[in-house]
């Protein structure tokens, strides 16, 4: 067990390093001198230009910049944003809260709703399943930004139930959460329902029924847990997707968040911020994977014995 955790941590560090290196290289491969992009379409004096280059060490050879960056990261220093005039850590820190809030709430809603839907619709009459699975397909195939605009038009502009923008209060969270949660929910529901349907055919389910257990009881106490392993896998994978879906939603609902930060940072070649975001998501990935692994063990005792 200890060994397993150690290897896990080892490979995690490897993944982090790889993510940093790959993005560093890719960012420097992108056309456009960092200085030029930073200066953009404004006219600066040569002194200012020299100052910018010196400040960010842009005159150093690439390898030195890379080594310097790695060194600083190891010391826990993510550097200074080129554009935002603040340390990367604090820039990301400021945006992390709202992002986590949105992502967390969306995942939670998605999990709750899809579990409920899956339990209610698995192995039901054909028309119920057909209806729900077609709705799900539509849910998957609508781009998030589109859902977001539609939701706003209906529930904010027309009905006035929820505010269009802003981050204050629960009401402002409702529509963004629905927009982000929709595709996740539909995917989860599909998978969970299929899993449930397979499970409900298992002999142990029949056994539970022969003990006098009700249908709902069987679904909740026995079948549900059996679909948790694939569900957890999917959720782990969806975390990454959620972060992606959030960019459009953040923009449309004028929310703070990592997505917006990333978009501006990549556009403006704000390398330290981009690298910070990369590190953040890589850490998130690693953490999510470890959590998923632990959950596997909690859910399925059969996996505990295996090393």
């Amino acid at each position, binding site marked *: 067990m200890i060994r397993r955790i150690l290897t896990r941590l080892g490979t995690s560090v490897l993944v982090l390093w790889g993510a940093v290196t790959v993005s560093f290289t890719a960012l420097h491969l992108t056309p456009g001198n960092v200085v030029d992009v930073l200066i953009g379409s404004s006219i600066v004096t040569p002194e200012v230009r020299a100052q910018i280059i010196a400040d960010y060490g842009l005159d150093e050879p690439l390898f030195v910049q890379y080594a310097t960056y790695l060194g600083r990261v190891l010391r826990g220093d993510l550097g200074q944003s080129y554009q935002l005039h603040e340390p990367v850590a604090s820039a990301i820190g400021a945006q992390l809260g709202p992002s986590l809030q949105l992502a967390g709430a969306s995942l939670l809603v998605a999990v709750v709703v899809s579990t409920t839907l899956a339990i209610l619709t698995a192995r039901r009459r054909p028309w119920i399943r057909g209806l729900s699975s077609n709705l799900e397909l539509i849910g998957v*195939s609508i*781009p998030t930004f589109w859902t977001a605009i539609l939701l706003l038009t209906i529930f904010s502009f027309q009905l006035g139930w929820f505010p269009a923008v802003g981050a204050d209060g629960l009401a402002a969270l409702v529509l963004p959460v629905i927009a982000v949660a929709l595709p996740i929910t539909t995917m989860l529901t599909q998978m969970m329902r299929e899993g449930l349907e397979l499970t409900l055919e298992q002999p142990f389910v029949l056994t539970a029924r022969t003990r006098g257990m009700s249908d709902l009881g069987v679904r909740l106490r026995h079948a549900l847990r059996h679909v948790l392993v694939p569900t957890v896998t999917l959720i782990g994978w969806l975390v*990454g997707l959620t972060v992606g879906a959030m*960019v459009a939603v953040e923009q449309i609902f004028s929310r703070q968040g990592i997505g917006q930060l990333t978009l501006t940072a990549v556009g403006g070649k704000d390398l330290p911020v981009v690298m910070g975001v990369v590190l953040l998501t890589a850490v998130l990935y690693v953490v999510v994977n470890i959590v998923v692994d632990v959950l596997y063990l909690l859910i399925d005792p059969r996996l505990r014995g295996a090393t």
Partner: protein
Amino acid sequence: MRIFAVAFLALVTLAALAPGLLTGGTPDAADALAALQGPSADHLLGTDANGRDVFTRIVYGAAPSLLAGLGATALAVVVGTALGLLAALGGRVVDEIVMRLVEIVLSLPTLLLALLVITVTGPGTVNVIFAIALYTAPSYARLVRAQTMVIRNAGFVEAAVSLGLGRGRIVTRHVLPNAFEPLVVLATIEVGTALVAAASLSYLGLGPQPPAPEWGAMLSAGRDYFSVAWWIAVFPGVAITLTVLSITVVGRRLQRRIA
């Protein structure tokens, strides 16, 4: 449902291969004087801000849109399969290397990955395909690897060994085709997802360039006019949704066939 899906796909395919059969117009015939006209007999689905016929553009958009969906999926499948097989059959060291690489790609945020690809290569359909393929390929690689690992130990592979079949033949004849099967199912669903992803990238201004009548680009361009001319965005949106829906329905069917 299924009949409808197949019929719709046939129609879309026809539009992609021979758009001229479905519409007489040209997709980029802009006419400022005919801008923003609602659906009518002249313009079945209305006109856009440049006075172009929305129906014609949707018909001509089938090819690039499908190309994005199919292309990205095909590329991802090919690369993913190659990596997955390599990892599963190439021995421990190769496996470690490939899987770590896959994890690295997976650990990068999808958006950033797309942005990086597109900033390196520039926007446009081909690069969008590239970007989407890059972030879906690792999933295929994982699937193929896992699948291959299972199949490698499957009874029929052992049976083939004891029958006296050579290693190469076992891989190409038994391992690969079987590892591929669940992949095909995933891939059909992914075609739709890729289409939507392409649309989302278009929204961020990273997709194909004007005046390409790509659906995602049309959808995102149309949002500016939504309050006065809903048809510009809604019809491409419907086209995307129906295509994804049809592909998924057919994919499901395929899945059941295989299972």
